[in-house]
Structures are given as C-alpha cells and as structure tokens.
C-alpha cells in the first residue's frame, strides 16, 4: 500500500513538474498564443478606465511590435489604413481611445504556424471587437507575421483577410 501511495505521489509530482515547465517555458505556439491574448487585452479598454492606465496600456502594446511594421487594415465599412512605423500605430490607438467610449478585443481562434528555423511565425486569428458595447461586433480575420527578437515574439506585419470573397 505504501508503495502504491508513493507511486501515486510520484506521478502527481511529475505531472505538476511538467505543467510548471510548460508554464515557465512554453513552446513557441503557446508563447505566441499567450502573447496575442495579452495584446488583445491591452488593446481593450472600458468606459470607466482612467487616462493614465489607458496610456500605460497603449505603451505596453507598443512592445508587441517591431519598430518598422507593415500593417494594412482594410475592414468593410471602415476607412482603410496602412501603418509603416510603430509610432504611427500608437498614435492611431491613442486616437481610437478618443473616438469610442469602450472597446473589447479578443481572439476566439488562433492558429499558429512556426517556420522551420523557429525564428519567425505566422498566426491566423479571428478578431472580435465589441465597440461601445453594441450588439453587432466587428468580426475580422487577420494574418499576423511575427519574428523572434531578444527572446520575444514581435509582430512585424499584419494583413486583414476576407472570408467571403
């Protein structure tokens, strides 16, 4: 009986150890997923959120992009935009805070493909954005290109996709 208890304990310990390992050293797919989820959280803001925390969130969001970027936003019913520098994107994000009272961004689906060299990746994501709490959310497919720099996955290119042609 003692042996069985010890074996069970050992299995539990190994399972916890494995789980901790995956938390602290996630595989690239998981690391990119976590990063995109965090980016979505930083892009979101509520009506009651203070200005200081909004600015801090936008500045943190900037850390998810490379200095030089290529972002083409072409969403039906919205003006199309192209951003070539991170600063431009940050300014647009700041302007968005003034234009809408609340924004909730999330990625319900994220599909990640890592390149063989493990230094760049492509993520296809479904973006859902609730603007001002309206019941018709904006649904948009995105293709996000990332590369590894100083141990972090940074976005250097983002394209909007059309599901129905």
């Amino acid at each position: 009986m003692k042996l069985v208890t010890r074996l069970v304990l050992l299995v539990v310990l190994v399972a916890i150890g494995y789980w901790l390992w995956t938390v602290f050293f996630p595989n690239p797919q998981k690391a990119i997923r976590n990063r995109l989820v965090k980016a979505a959280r930083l892009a979101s803001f509520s009506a009651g959120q203070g200005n200081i925390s909004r600015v801090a969130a936008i500045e943190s969001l900037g850390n998810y992009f490379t200095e030089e970027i290529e972002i083409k936003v072409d969403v039906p019913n919205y003006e199309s935009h192209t951003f070539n520098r991170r600063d431009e994107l940050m300014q647009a994000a700041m302007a968005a805070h003034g234009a809408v009272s609340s924004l909730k961004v999330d990625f319900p689906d994220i599909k990640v493909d890592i390149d063989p060299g493990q230094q760049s990746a492509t993520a296809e994501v479904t973006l859902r954005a609730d603007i001002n709490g309206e019941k018709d959310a904006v649904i948009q497919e995105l293709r996000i290109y990332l590369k590894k720099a100083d141990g972090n996955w940074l976005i250097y290119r983002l394209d909007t996709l059309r599901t129905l042609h």
Partner: protein
Amino acid sequence: MDGETKTGSFPSWFQTLVIGRRPKWTLVRIAIVVLTTFVLLEFVLIPIRVTGVSMAPTYENGGINFINRLSYLHSKPQRGDVVGVRLQAGEHLMYMKRIVGLPGETIAFHDGVLFIDEQPMPEPYVKYTSRTWQMAPIHLGPNFYYVVGDNRSMNFEDHYQGKADLVTGIVGKVILKGKS
C-alpha cells in the same frame, strides 16, 4: 423508539433515485450518455448562438441553434439552405448565412432584387428589404456558393456576404428553422 435511524447515510429511496437500483448499470448508462453527447457535439452537431442582425427576422440576435456537419456528406447544398461558414483560424466564430447562388450561376442585385443568371429570384424569407442594394454580376466557379443574410434593410456595405467554398468554407446546415 422503534424507528431505525441511520446517521450519515442517505435514505434508500434517495439512493435509488440518484444512482438507481443497480449502480453498475447506472454508471454504464451515464458513460453511454456522456460518450454519445461528446461524439454528437464534437463530430456531428455544432451548437451556436446567433449574434447580430444580418439574418433578421428569420433568426434573431441571441437565438440558439445547431449546425449539422454531416448535412452535405451525401448531397449538395440547395438554394435557400441556411448554413454555417467557417473562418480560417477555427470554428469558435462562424458566419450564418443563406445560400442564394449555386456553382456556375451568375449573381447580381438590382434595386434590392436578387438576380440569378439575369432572372429575378423570389425570396419569400426576406422580410426587411431595401431598394438600395446594387451589385454587379458575379460568376460562381465550381464548388462556390453565394451566401447572404436575410436582412436586406442593412446598408449593402455593412452586410457581410460573398462566395463560400463547399470544401473549406461551408461547415454544414443550420437545423432549427427560423421564423418563416
């Protein structure tokens, strides 16, 4: 005191109600129900909640429905079928639209009226109309279907619609009929 009291144990009728007279068979039945539900919801039916107004008034915002993944296993989609269209990244979100154009056909909208191969097509399910819908003819290739929502009172530009591929786009048919 004649009555026998068992402290810490459930009365027998309660035990029978919860786990049955033969607990082993109850376990087997639970396992079968769980397995059947899992298989059904994983491989056959996709539960969905309608959000948005593009299928109004047939399907209203907040309604619950199911998509049958197997509906087009042995037959092709028909005009008028309401289908789920998947997005590339996954199936947590999908579009719910009605098929109005079939492969090989040419689709157009003139003054809010749907034209198939230059002939006006009656659409009894469309209750909210607008005469502002205009779309130049689009030809559908093999395997492509034209999908659009029932709510035509929306701005044409606001209403997401287009060609969906049967192989990679259309997931299945919506099984619960909406308001007719």
